[in-house]
Protein backbone atom coordinates (compact mmCIF):
# COMPACT_ATOMS: atom_id res chain seq x y z
CA UNK A 1 0.00 0.00 0.00
CA UNK A 2 2.31 2.73 -1.23
CA UNK A 3 1.57 6.20 -0.02
CA UNK A 4 -1.09 5.15 2.49
CA UNK A 5 -0.90 7.10 5.71
CA UNK A 6 -0.64 5.28 8.99
CA UNK A 7 -2.31 6.75 12.08
CA UNK A 8 -2.64 5.14 15.49
CA UNK A 9 -1.81 1.68 16.66
CA UNK A 10 -3.40 -1.25 14.90
CA UNK A 11 -6.72 -1.90 16.64
CA UNK A 12 -7.33 1.78 17.52
CA UNK A 13 -10.48 3.63 16.47
CA UNK A 14 -8.44 6.08 14.46
CA UNK A 15 -7.05 3.26 12.36
CA UNK A 16 -10.47 1.68 12.02
CA UNK A 17 -11.95 4.96 10.73
CA UNK A 18 -9.11 5.33 8.31
CA UNK A 19 -9.63 1.87 6.95
CA UNK A 20 -13.22 2.52 6.02
CA UNK A 21 -13.18 2.63 2.25
CA UNK A 22 -13.59 6.13 0.72
CA UNK A 23 -16.26 4.54 -1.44
CA UNK A 24 -18.25 3.69 1.67
CA UNK A 25 -18.06 7.32 2.76
CA UNK A 26 -19.08 8.46 -0.70
CA UNK A 27 -22.01 6.09 -0.84
CA UNK A 28 -23.24 7.10 2.61
CA UNK A 29 -22.87 10.75 1.63
CA UNK A 30 -24.97 10.28 -1.47
CA UNK A 31 -27.57 8.25 0.40
CA UNK A 32 -27.88 10.89 3.13
CA UNK A 33 -28.12 13.68 0.58
CA UNK A 34 -31.14 12.18 -1.11
CA UNK A 35 -32.66 10.26 1.80
CA UNK A 36 -32.65 12.96 4.44
CA UNK A 37 -33.71 15.61 1.92
CA UNK A 38 -36.71 13.53 0.97
CA UNK A 39 -37.47 12.97 4.67
CA UNK A 40 -37.48 16.74 5.18
CA UNK A 41 -39.65 17.29 2.14
CA UNK A 42 -42.12 14.61 3.12
CA UNK A 43 -42.30 15.93 6.67
CA UNK A 44 -42.97 19.42 5.39
CA UNK A 45 -45.63 18.22 2.97
CA UNK A 46 -47.59 16.36 5.63
CA UNK A 47 -47.49 19.33 8.01
CA UNK A 48 -48.72 21.62 5.25
CA UNK A 49 -51.03 19.10 3.66
CA UNK A 50 -53.01 18.11 6.72
CA UNK A 51 -53.71 21.75 7.59
CA UNK A 52 -54.46 22.59 3.98
CA UNK A 53 -57.03 19.82 3.63
CA UNK A 54 -58.81 20.86 6.81
CA UNK A 55 -58.76 24.56 6.01
CA UNK A 56 -59.96 23.99 2.46
CA UNK A 57 -63.26 22.55 3.71
CA UNK A 58 -64.59 25.95 4.75
CA UNK A 59 -62.56 27.99 2.25
CA UNK A 60 -62.13 25.98 -0.95
CA UNK A 61 -60.55 28.95 -2.75
CA UNK A 62 -57.26 28.41 -0.91
CA UNK A 63 -56.49 24.98 -2.37
CA UNK A 64 -54.79 25.94 -5.62
CA UNK A 65 -53.00 28.96 -4.15
CA UNK A 66 -51.61 26.98 -1.25
CA UNK A 67 -50.28 24.25 -3.50
CA UNK A 68 -47.31 26.63 -3.72
CA UNK A 69 -46.44 25.67 -0.14
CA UNK A 70 -46.44 22.02 -1.11
CA UNK A 71 -44.30 22.80 -4.15
CA UNK A 72 -41.80 24.63 -1.95
CA UNK A 73 -41.50 21.50 0.17
CA UNK A 74 -41.20 19.39 -2.94
CA UNK A 75 -38.36 21.64 -4.15
CA UNK A 76 -36.39 20.56 -1.10
CA UNK A 77 -36.54 16.96 -2.28
CA UNK A 78 -35.50 18.08 -5.74
CA UNK A 79 -32.40 19.80 -4.27
CA UNK A 80 -31.54 16.46 -2.68
CA UNK A 81 -31.97 14.62 -5.97
CA UNK A 82 -29.83 17.15 -7.85
CA UNK A 83 -27.03 17.02 -5.31
CA UNK A 84 -27.16 13.23 -5.18
CA UNK A 85 -26.78 13.10 -8.95
CA UNK A 86 -23.91 15.59 -8.88
CA UNK A 87 -22.23 13.62 -6.11
CA UNK A 88 -22.52 10.30 -7.83
CA UNK A 89 -20.89 11.72 -10.98
CA UNK A 90 -17.89 12.46 -8.77
CA UNK A 91 -17.37 8.77 -8.12
CA UNK A 92 -14.53 7.36 -10.13
CA UNK A 93 -12.84 4.02 -9.95
CA UNK A 94 -9.29 4.01 -8.66
CA UNK A 95 -6.88 1.09 -8.68
CA UNK A 96 -6.79 -0.88 -5.46
CA UNK A 97 -3.25 0.26 -4.74
CA UNK A 98 -4.40 3.87 -4.65
CA UNK A 99 -7.45 3.24 -2.49
CA UNK A 100 -6.07 4.63 0.79
CA UNK A 101 -3.85 7.41 -0.47
CA UNK A 102 -4.66 10.82 1.04
CA UNK A 103 -6.22 12.07 -2.17
CA UNK A 104 -8.68 9.19 -2.26
CA UNK A 105 -9.54 9.68 1.37
CA UNK A 106 -10.07 13.37 0.78
CA UNK A 107 -12.42 12.70 -2.10
CA UNK A 108 -14.38 10.21 0.00
CA UNK A 109 -14.68 12.60 2.94
CA UNK A 110 -15.61 15.49 0.66
CA UNK A 111 -18.51 13.56 -0.84
CA UNK A 112 -19.58 12.36 2.61
CA UNK A 113 -19.51 15.88 4.08
CA UNK A 114 -21.27 17.29 1.07
CA UNK A 115 -24.05 14.73 1.43
CA UNK A 116 -24.43 15.41 5.16
CA UNK A 117 -24.56 19.17 4.61
CA UNK A 118 -27.18 18.93 1.90
CA UNK A 119 -29.21 16.27 3.69
CA UNK A 120 -29.57 18.03 7.02
CA UNK A 121 -29.85 21.52 5.56
CA UNK A 122 -32.75 20.23 3.51
CA UNK A 123 -34.31 18.39 6.46
CA UNK A 124 -34.63 21.54 8.53
CA UNK A 125 -35.53 23.58 5.48
CA UNK A 126 -38.36 21.18 4.68
CA UNK A 127 -39.62 21.36 8.27
CA UNK A 128 -39.43 25.14 8.28
CA UNK A 129 -41.25 25.52 4.98
CA UNK A 130 -43.83 22.92 6.06
CA UNK A 131 -44.68 24.68 9.31
CA UNK A 132 -44.92 28.05 7.63
CA UNK A 133 -46.98 26.48 4.87
CA UNK A 134 -49.40 25.10 7.43
CA UNK A 135 -49.78 28.52 9.05
CA UNK A 136 -50.10 30.01 5.60
CA UNK A 137 -53.02 27.75 4.72
CA UNK A 138 -54.81 28.50 8.00
CA UNK A 139 -54.33 32.26 7.78
CA UNK A 140 -55.20 32.40 4.11
CA UNK A 141 -58.48 30.68 4.92
CA UNK A 142 -59.28 33.43 7.45
CA UNK A 143 -57.93 36.42 5.54
CA UNK A 144 -56.74 36.13 1.97
CA UNK A 145 -54.59 39.27 2.12
CA UNK A 146 -52.17 37.42 4.40
CA UNK A 147 -51.22 34.88 1.75
CA UNK A 148 -48.62 36.95 -0.08
CA UNK A 149 -47.04 38.15 3.15
CA UNK A 150 -46.58 34.65 4.48
CA UNK A 151 -45.39 33.49 1.09
CA UNK A 152 -42.45 35.90 1.42
CA UNK A 153 -41.52 34.28 4.73
CA UNK A 154 -41.82 30.92 3.08
CA UNK A 155 -39.45 31.95 0.29
CA UNK A 156 -36.87 32.98 2.86
CA UNK A 157 -37.30 29.65 4.61
CA UNK A 158 -36.87 27.87 1.31
CA UNK A 159 -33.60 29.77 0.72
CA UNK A 160 -32.08 28.02 3.75
CA UNK A 161 -32.02 24.74 1.87
CA UNK A 162 -30.40 26.45 -1.09
CA UNK A 163 -27.50 27.58 1.10
CA UNK A 164 -26.88 23.96 1.99
CA UNK A 165 -27.00 22.97 -1.65
CA UNK A 166 -24.51 25.67 -2.68
CA UNK A 167 -22.02 24.77 0.04
CA UNK A 168 -22.52 21.08 -0.71
CA UNK A 169 -21.75 21.54 -4.40
CA UNK A 170 -18.65 23.64 -3.69
CA UNK A 171 -17.56 21.02 -1.19
CA UNK A 172 -17.99 18.21 -3.68
CA UNK A 173 -15.71 20.06 -6.09
CA UNK A 174 -12.93 19.04 -3.71
CA UNK A 175 -13.56 15.42 -4.56
CA UNK A 176 -10.78 14.64 -7.00
CA UNK A 177 -9.70 11.05 -7.08
CA UNK A 178 -6.08 10.15 -7.85
CA UNK A 179 -5.60 9.83 -11.59
CA UNK A 180 -5.07 6.36 -12.97
CA UNK A 181 -1.48 5.73 -13.76
Amino acid at each position, binding site marked *: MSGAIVIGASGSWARAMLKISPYTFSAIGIAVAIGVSVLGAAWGIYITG*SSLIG*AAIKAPRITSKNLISVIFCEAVAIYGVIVAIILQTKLESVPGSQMYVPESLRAGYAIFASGIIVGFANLVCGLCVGIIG*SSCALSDA*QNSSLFVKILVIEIFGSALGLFGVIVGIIMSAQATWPSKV
Partner: protein
Amino acid sequence: MYGFEAMTFNIHGGYLEAIVRGHRSGLLTVADYNNLCQCETLDDIKMHLSATEYGPYLQNEPSPLHTTTIVEKCTVKLVDEYKHMLSQATEPLSTFLEYITYGHMIDNVVLIVTGTLHERDVQELLEKCHPLGMFDSIATLAVAQNMRELYRLVLVDTPLAPYFSECITSEDLDDMNIEIMRNTLYKAYLEDFYQFCQKLGGATAEIMSDLLAFEADRRAVNITINRCCHDSILCSSLEQSLHEMIVESCILVSAYCKTNYPYGHEELAVCEDIDQVHVLACVYIIDVRGVMEKYPPYQAIFGKLSYGESQMLDKAFYEEEVKRLCLSFEQQFHYGVFFAYMRLREQEIRNLMWISECVAQNQKSRVHDSVVSIF
Protein backbone atom coordinates in the same frame (compact mmCIF):
# COMPACT_ATOMS: atom_id res chain seq x y z
CA MET B 1 -41.46 18.77 24.24
CA TYR B 2 -42.20 22.43 24.48
CA GLY B 3 -41.77 24.32 21.24
CA PHE B 4 -41.53 21.20 19.14
CA GLU B 5 -45.26 20.52 18.77
CA ALA B 6 -44.98 22.09 15.36
CA MET B 7 -43.07 19.07 14.12
CA THR B 8 -45.44 16.33 15.19
CA PHE B 9 -48.76 17.98 16.09
CA ASN B 10 -50.14 17.75 12.58
CA ILE B 11 -49.86 13.95 12.42
CA HIS B 12 -53.05 13.64 14.42
CA GLY B 13 -54.26 17.16 15.03
CA GLY B 14 -53.53 19.13 11.86
CA TYR B 15 -56.67 18.33 9.95
CA LEU B 16 -59.03 18.93 12.84
CA GLU B 17 -57.27 22.08 13.93
CA ALA B 18 -57.75 23.49 10.47
CA ILE B 19 -61.41 22.43 10.54
CA VAL B 20 -62.06 24.07 13.89
CA ARG B 21 -60.46 27.25 12.63
CA GLY B 22 -62.74 27.05 9.63
CA HIS B 23 -65.73 26.74 11.96
CA ARG B 24 -64.45 29.72 13.91
CA SER B 25 -64.63 31.93 10.83
CA GLY B 26 -68.34 31.07 10.76
CA LEU B 27 -69.00 32.75 14.11
CA LEU B 28 -71.27 35.76 13.96
CA THR B 29 -69.46 39.08 13.61
CA VAL B 30 -70.20 42.47 15.14
CA ALA B 31 -72.00 43.45 11.93
CA ASP B 32 -74.22 40.37 12.25
CA TYR B 33 -75.09 41.29 15.82
CA ASN B 34 -75.89 44.85 14.81
CA ASN B 35 -78.26 43.55 12.17
CA LEU B 36 -79.84 41.09 14.57
CA CYS B 37 -80.39 43.81 17.16
CA GLN B 38 -82.33 45.80 14.57
CA CYS B 39 -84.83 42.98 14.06
CA GLU B 40 -88.49 43.54 14.85
CA THR B 41 -89.75 39.97 14.87
CA LEU B 42 -88.36 36.49 15.28
CA ASP B 43 -88.90 35.90 11.56
CA ASP B 44 -86.54 38.80 10.86
CA ILE B 45 -83.98 37.10 13.04
CA LYS B 46 -84.48 33.90 11.11
CA MET B 47 -84.01 35.78 7.87
CA HIS B 48 -80.76 37.31 9.07
CA LEU B 49 -79.52 34.00 10.37
CA SER B 50 -80.29 32.29 7.07
CA ALA B 51 -77.35 34.18 5.56
CA THR B 52 -75.04 32.69 8.20
CA GLU B 53 -74.05 29.13 8.91
CA TYR B 54 -77.24 28.65 10.89
CA GLY B 55 -79.23 28.97 7.67
CA PRO B 56 -79.72 25.28 6.82
CA TYR B 57 -80.78 24.50 10.37
CA LEU B 58 -83.51 27.12 10.55
CA GLN B 59 -84.63 26.79 6.94
CA ASN B 60 -87.49 24.38 7.41
CA GLU B 61 -88.97 25.84 10.58
CA PRO B 62 -92.64 26.82 10.21
CA SER B 63 -93.33 30.48 10.61
CA PRO B 64 -94.56 31.16 14.15
CA LEU B 65 -91.08 30.77 15.59
CA HIS B 66 -90.30 30.50 19.27
CA THR B 67 -87.12 31.52 21.00
CA THR B 68 -86.61 27.98 22.16
CA THR B 69 -86.75 26.70 18.57
CA ILE B 70 -83.98 29.09 17.51
CA VAL B 71 -81.81 28.16 20.46
CA GLU B 72 -82.52 24.48 19.96
CA LYS B 73 -81.58 24.55 16.29
CA CYS B 74 -78.41 26.52 16.99
CA THR B 75 -77.44 23.97 19.62
CA VAL B 76 -78.12 21.17 17.15
CA LYS B 77 -75.61 22.77 14.82
CA LEU B 78 -73.01 22.95 17.60
CA VAL B 79 -73.64 19.32 18.50
CA ASP B 80 -73.34 18.25 14.86
CA GLU B 81 -70.00 19.99 14.57
CA TYR B 82 -68.83 18.51 17.83
CA LYS B 83 -69.81 14.99 16.81
CA HIS B 84 -68.09 15.40 13.48
CA MET B 85 -64.89 16.48 15.20
CA LEU B 86 -65.11 13.73 17.78
CA SER B 87 -65.52 11.08 15.11
CA GLN B 88 -62.42 12.36 13.31
CA ALA B 89 -60.30 12.73 16.43
CA THR B 90 -57.63 10.33 17.63
CA GLU B 91 -56.12 10.08 21.08
CA PRO B 92 -55.39 12.24 23.01
CA LEU B 93 -57.58 14.76 21.20
CA SER B 94 -60.71 12.62 21.52
CA THR B 95 -60.27 12.49 25.30
CA PHE B 96 -59.75 16.24 25.30
CA LEU B 97 -62.97 16.74 23.36
CA GLU B 98 -64.84 14.47 25.74
CA TYR B 99 -63.58 16.49 28.68
CA ILE B 100 -65.27 19.54 27.20
CA THR B 101 -68.68 17.91 27.57
CA TYR B 102 -68.30 16.86 31.21
CA GLY B 103 -69.32 20.33 32.38
CA HIS B 104 -72.64 19.91 30.60
CA MET B 105 -72.99 16.45 32.05
CA ILE B 106 -72.70 17.84 35.56
CA ASP B 107 -75.29 20.51 34.75
CA ASN B 108 -77.64 17.87 33.33
CA VAL B 109 -77.30 15.65 36.38
CA VAL B 110 -78.07 18.60 38.63
CA LEU B 111 -80.97 19.63 36.43
CA ILE B 112 -82.58 16.18 36.52
CA VAL B 113 -82.03 15.71 40.24
CA THR B 114 -83.37 19.16 41.11
CA GLY B 115 -86.30 18.68 38.77
CA THR B 116 -87.19 15.34 40.30
CA LEU B 117 -86.98 16.86 43.73
CA HIS B 118 -89.61 19.39 42.69
CA GLU B 119 -91.68 16.60 41.11
CA ARG B 120 -91.34 17.56 37.50
CA ASP B 121 -91.89 15.11 34.69
CA VAL B 122 -88.64 13.37 33.71
CA GLN B 123 -89.41 13.55 30.00
CA GLU B 124 -89.93 17.27 30.25
CA LEU B 125 -86.62 17.60 32.09
CA LEU B 126 -84.77 15.50 29.54
CA GLU B 127 -85.85 17.88 26.82
CA LYS B 128 -84.24 20.72 28.71
CA CYS B 129 -80.91 18.95 29.09
CA HIS B 130 -77.99 20.14 27.03
CA PRO B 131 -77.49 17.57 24.26
CA LEU B 132 -73.71 17.62 24.72
CA GLY B 133 -74.06 16.37 28.26
CA MET B 134 -76.32 13.42 27.60
CA PHE B 135 -75.39 9.91 28.61
CA ASP B 136 -77.24 6.62 28.32
CA SER B 137 -78.64 6.18 31.78
CA ILE B 138 -79.55 9.82 32.41
CA ALA B 139 -83.28 9.14 32.62
CA THR B 140 -82.83 6.78 35.55
CA LEU B 141 -81.32 9.57 37.65
CA ALA B 142 -84.81 10.35 38.86
CA VAL B 143 -84.99 7.26 41.07
CA ALA B 144 -82.13 8.26 43.36
CA GLN B 145 -82.97 9.49 46.84
CA ASN B 146 -79.55 10.41 48.14
CA MET B 147 -76.03 10.97 46.92
CA ARG B 148 -74.91 7.40 47.55
CA GLU B 149 -77.74 5.91 45.51
CA LEU B 150 -77.18 8.47 42.81
CA TYR B 151 -73.62 7.28 42.54
CA ARG B 152 -74.24 3.57 42.89
CA LEU B 153 -77.22 3.27 40.55
CA VAL B 154 -76.40 5.64 37.76
CA LEU B 155 -73.23 7.62 37.79
CA VAL B 156 -70.76 4.84 38.41
CA ASP B 157 -70.87 4.03 34.69
CA THR B 158 -70.38 7.60 33.52
CA PRO B 159 -67.15 9.54 33.18
CA LEU B 160 -68.25 11.60 36.18
CA ALA B 161 -67.78 8.70 38.59
CA PRO B 162 -64.26 9.64 39.78
CA TYR B 163 -65.45 13.15 40.66
CA PHE B 164 -67.97 11.81 43.10
CA SER B 165 -65.43 10.59 45.61
CA GLU B 166 -65.66 13.84 47.58
CA CYS B 167 -69.39 14.17 47.81
CA ILE B 168 -70.83 10.75 48.58
CA THR B 169 -73.05 11.16 51.60
CA SER B 170 -76.13 9.35 52.70
CA GLU B 171 -77.99 12.57 53.31
CA ASP B 172 -81.20 13.07 51.45
CA LEU B 173 -80.95 15.28 48.44
CA ASP B 174 -82.19 18.81 48.91
CA ASP B 175 -81.54 22.06 47.10
CA MET B 176 -78.57 22.99 49.21
CA ASN B 177 -77.00 19.55 48.93
CA ILE B 178 -77.42 19.54 45.20
CA GLU B 179 -75.81 22.95 44.88
CA ILE B 180 -72.87 21.77 46.95
CA MET B 181 -72.68 18.64 44.84
CA ARG B 182 -72.61 20.68 41.66
CA ASN B 183 -69.76 22.82 42.91
CA THR B 184 -67.75 19.91 44.27
CA LEU B 185 -68.20 18.00 41.05
CA TYR B 186 -67.25 20.99 39.00
CA LYS B 187 -64.19 21.55 41.10
CA ALA B 188 -63.10 17.91 40.67
CA TYR B 189 -63.83 18.16 36.96
CA LEU B 190 -61.78 21.32 36.50
CA GLU B 191 -58.88 19.87 38.44
CA ASP B 192 -58.97 16.67 36.45
CA PHE B 193 -59.15 18.56 33.16
CA TYR B 194 -56.27 20.75 34.34
CA GLN B 195 -54.16 17.71 35.18
CA PHE B 196 -54.95 16.18 31.82
CA CYS B 197 -53.86 19.33 30.01
CA GLN B 198 -50.67 19.48 32.03
CA LYS B 199 -49.96 15.93 30.96
CA LEU B 200 -50.37 16.91 27.32
CA GLY B 201 -47.74 19.58 27.88
CA GLY B 202 -46.48 22.29 25.57
CA ALA B 203 -48.67 25.06 24.29
CA THR B 204 -51.84 23.12 25.16
CA ALA B 205 -50.90 23.09 28.84
CA GLU B 206 -49.93 26.74 28.81
CA ILE B 207 -53.10 27.98 27.17
CA MET B 208 -55.54 25.63 28.86
CA SER B 209 -54.17 26.32 32.33
CA ASP B 210 -54.93 29.98 31.80
CA LEU B 211 -58.44 29.32 30.50
CA LEU B 212 -59.27 26.78 33.20
CA ALA B 213 -57.84 28.95 35.97
CA PHE B 214 -60.04 31.77 34.78
CA GLU B 215 -63.06 29.49 34.77
CA ALA B 216 -62.26 28.38 38.32
CA ASP B 217 -61.76 31.96 39.48
CA ARG B 218 -65.04 33.00 37.94
CA ARG B 219 -66.86 30.20 39.67
CA ALA B 220 -65.16 30.99 42.96
CA VAL B 221 -66.22 34.62 42.74
CA ASN B 222 -69.76 33.68 41.77
CA ILE B 223 -70.06 31.22 44.63
CA THR B 224 -68.78 33.81 47.06
CA ILE B 225 -71.22 36.41 45.84
CA ASN B 226 -74.16 34.02 45.85
CA ARG B 227 -73.27 32.99 49.36
CA CYS B 228 -73.01 36.62 50.45
CA CYS B 229 -76.39 37.40 48.94
CA HIS B 230 -77.82 34.35 50.60
CA ASP B 231 -76.27 35.32 53.93
CA SER B 232 -77.90 38.69 53.91
CA ILE B 233 -81.32 37.16 53.47
CA LEU B 234 -81.10 34.28 55.88
CA CYS B 235 -79.01 34.68 58.97
CA SER B 236 -80.28 31.86 61.10
CA SER B 237 -77.72 29.63 62.70
CA LEU B 238 -79.06 26.59 60.87
CA GLU B 239 -78.39 28.18 57.55
CA GLN B 240 -74.99 29.26 58.75
CA SER B 241 -73.60 25.73 58.77
CA LEU B 242 -74.82 25.16 55.25
CA HIS B 243 -73.14 28.31 54.12
CA GLU B 244 -69.93 27.14 55.58
CA MET B 245 -70.19 24.05 53.45
CA ILE B 246 -70.57 26.18 50.37
CA VAL B 247 -67.61 28.30 51.37
CA GLU B 248 -65.69 25.11 51.70
CA SER B 249 -66.57 24.01 48.21
CA CYS B 250 -65.66 27.46 47.01
CA ILE B 251 -62.22 27.13 48.50
CA LEU B 252 -61.94 23.73 46.91
CA VAL B 253 -62.83 25.03 43.49
CA SER B 254 -60.15 27.60 43.64
CA ALA B 255 -57.59 25.43 45.33
CA TYR B 256 -55.56 24.59 42.30
CA CYS B 257 -55.24 27.95 40.64
CA LYS B 258 -53.42 29.30 43.64
CA THR B 259 -50.24 29.15 41.64
CA ASN B 260 -51.12 32.45 40.01
CA TYR B 261 -52.42 34.42 42.95
CA PRO B 262 -51.56 32.46 46.04
CA TYR B 263 -53.54 34.23 48.71
CA GLY B 264 -56.47 35.64 46.82
CA HIS B 265 -58.81 32.76 47.28
CA GLU B 266 -58.24 32.48 50.97
CA GLU B 267 -59.06 36.15 51.32
CA LEU B 268 -62.08 35.59 49.14
CA ALA B 269 -63.20 32.74 51.32
CA VAL B 270 -62.77 34.84 54.43
CA CYS B 271 -64.92 37.73 53.29
CA GLU B 272 -67.93 36.42 55.10
CA ASP B 273 -67.93 38.35 58.37
CA ILE B 274 -71.57 39.10 58.71
CA ASP B 275 -71.68 42.46 60.28
CA GLN B 276 -75.08 43.02 61.80
CA VAL B 277 -75.11 46.55 60.47
CA HIS B 278 -74.46 45.67 56.83
CA VAL B 279 -76.91 43.00 55.96
CA LEU B 280 -77.21 44.12 52.40
CA ALA B 281 -75.90 41.94 49.63
CA CYS B 282 -74.09 44.70 47.86
CA VAL B 283 -71.83 45.24 50.83
CA TYR B 284 -70.49 41.77 50.37
CA ILE B 285 -69.99 42.31 46.70
CA ILE B 286 -67.93 45.38 47.52
CA ASP B 287 -66.04 43.14 49.91
CA VAL B 288 -65.37 40.72 47.08
CA ARG B 289 -64.38 43.57 44.86
CA GLY B 290 -61.84 44.70 47.41
CA VAL B 291 -60.19 41.33 47.31
CA MET B 292 -60.35 40.81 43.58
CA GLU B 293 -59.03 44.21 42.62
CA LYS B 294 -55.65 43.28 43.99
CA TYR B 295 -55.14 40.90 41.09
CA PRO B 296 -54.23 42.54 37.82
CA PRO B 297 -56.37 40.41 35.47
CA TYR B 298 -59.46 41.19 37.47
CA GLN B 299 -58.82 44.87 38.06
CA ALA B 300 -60.25 45.69 34.68
CA ILE B 301 -63.38 43.61 35.27
CA PHE B 302 -64.21 45.05 38.63
CA GLY B 303 -63.03 48.50 37.63
CA LYS B 304 -65.72 48.60 34.96
CA LEU B 305 -68.49 47.99 37.44
CA SER B 306 -69.74 50.96 39.32
CA TYR B 307 -70.85 50.16 42.82
CA GLY B 308 -74.16 48.37 42.99
CA GLU B 309 -74.03 47.07 39.46
CA SER B 310 -73.52 43.52 40.55
CA GLN B 311 -75.81 42.08 37.91
CA MET B 312 -73.33 43.31 35.31
CA LEU B 313 -70.62 41.16 36.81
CA ASP B 314 -71.68 38.16 34.77
CA LYS B 315 -71.41 40.10 31.58
CA ALA B 316 -68.01 41.48 32.54
CA PHE B 317 -66.78 37.99 33.24
CA TYR B 318 -68.19 36.69 29.97
CA GLU B 319 -66.49 39.50 28.09
CA GLU B 320 -63.18 38.73 29.71
CA GLU B 321 -63.62 35.03 28.98
CA VAL B 322 -64.42 35.67 25.33
CA LYS B 323 -61.34 37.86 25.07
CA ARG B 324 -59.16 35.10 26.46
CA LEU B 325 -60.77 32.44 24.29
CA CYS B 326 -60.19 34.54 21.18
CA LEU B 327 -56.54 34.98 22.12
CA SER B 328 -56.03 31.23 22.15
CA PHE B 329 -56.59 31.25 18.39
CA GLU B 330 -53.43 33.32 18.02
CA GLN B 331 -51.26 30.26 18.55
CA GLN B 332 -51.07 27.22 16.38
CA PHE B 333 -50.46 23.56 17.18
CA HIS B 334 -52.41 23.19 20.42
CA TYR B 335 -55.76 21.79 21.56
CA GLY B 336 -56.93 24.96 23.29
CA VAL B 337 -58.66 26.05 20.08
CA PHE B 338 -61.19 23.22 20.38
CA PHE B 339 -62.12 24.27 23.90
CA ALA B 340 -62.18 27.91 22.86
CA TYR B 341 -64.37 27.23 19.85
CA MET B 342 -66.94 25.25 21.82
CA ARG B 343 -67.11 27.97 24.45
CA LEU B 344 -67.40 30.74 21.89
CA ARG B 345 -70.25 28.95 20.14
CA GLU B 346 -72.02 28.50 23.45
CA GLN B 347 -71.58 32.20 24.12
CA GLU B 348 -72.98 32.93 20.68
CA ILE B 349 -76.02 30.78 21.39
CA ARG B 350 -76.51 32.66 24.68
CA ASN B 351 -76.34 35.91 22.72
CA LEU B 352 -78.89 34.69 20.19
CA MET B 353 -81.15 33.56 23.00
CA TRP B 354 -80.96 36.97 24.65
CA ILE B 355 -81.59 38.82 21.41
CA SER B 356 -84.53 36.68 20.44
CA GLU B 357 -85.98 36.88 23.94
CA CYS B 358 -85.71 40.67 23.83
CA VAL B 359 -87.34 40.77 20.41
CA ALA B 360 -90.07 38.34 21.41
CA GLN B 361 -90.90 40.27 24.57
CA ASN B 362 -90.62 43.72 23.02
CA GLN B 363 -87.77 44.75 25.28
CA LYS B 364 -85.57 46.09 22.54
CA SER B 365 -84.01 48.75 24.73
CA ARG B 366 -82.32 46.04 26.74
CA VAL B 367 -81.05 44.11 23.76
CA HIS B 368 -77.47 45.30 24.18
CA ASP B 369 -77.37 44.53 27.89
CA SER B 370 -76.09 41.04 27.74
CA VAL B 371 -74.79 40.54 24.22
CA VAL B 372 -71.08 39.83 24.17
CA SER B 373 -69.92 40.20 20.60
CA ILE B 374 -67.14 37.81 19.85
CA PHE B 375 -65.10 39.46 17.10
